[in-house]
């Protein structure tokens, strides 16, 4: 009964490829997020998405695109992978209300670009 799940857990691929990471949450939350954690453990928000709007961190290259088939899923598509994309990607979800919501994180997907 994992709250936020991601697949795959590990992803190794060549430069130039296109890949996707899937995220699912069973908490009934209305907002989902993608974060990138680099090799120095620094965490940075990439996207915030609910059924009304997508908020993009301006530093994220347009090779990255989130796709949400339904409220419980937010997949991350990455085109033309580069070496610098190697990182751990975390999905999170929350129920946004008038008071600060708690974000629940998935276990992460370690992406290695060769």
């Amino acid at each position, binding site marked *: 009964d994992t709250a936020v799940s991601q697949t795959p857990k590990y992803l190794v691929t060549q430069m130039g490829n296109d890949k996707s990471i899937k995220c699912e949450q069973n908490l009934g939350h209305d907002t989902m*997020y993608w974060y990138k954690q680099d090799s*120095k453990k620094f*965490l940075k928000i990439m996207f915030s998405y609910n059924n009304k709007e997508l*908020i993009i961190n301006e530093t994220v290259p347009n090779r990255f695109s989130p796709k949400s088939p339904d409220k419980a899923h937010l997949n991350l598509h990455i085109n033309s992978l580069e070496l610098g994309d190697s990182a751990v990607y975390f999905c999170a979800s*929350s129920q*946004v209300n008038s008071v600060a919501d708690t*974000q629940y*994180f998935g276990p992460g997907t370690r992406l290695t670009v060769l």
Partner: protein
Amino acid sequence: AQSVTQLDSQVPVFEEAPVELRCNYSSSVSVYLFWYVQYPNQGLQLLLKYLSGSTLVKGINGFEAEFNKSQTSFHLRKPSVHISDTAEYFCAVRGHNNAGNMLTFGGGTRLMVKP
């Protein structure tokens, strides 16, 4: 916009000793504050959060944090650590009415508890 600074990248401490992990932030608006813990090869888990009210916040696993508005700090403390507390700890902030409800994280502090 907000930024978060965790002054110590690593904190070694002996088991049963007290520990304080420091977090300072900057923001032009009022903020909500969070501490998350990341155990090896796992995702992040919320330890505690400050929304409003009492500046001393108690969380899980015996951790607590105190919000100090004048010093723009939110240091995390535990009076007696265990080996199992060895992990990476992240301080995070979110501005009130932040578009997208996105968190800004500090660089993390690795707590290393020695026997």
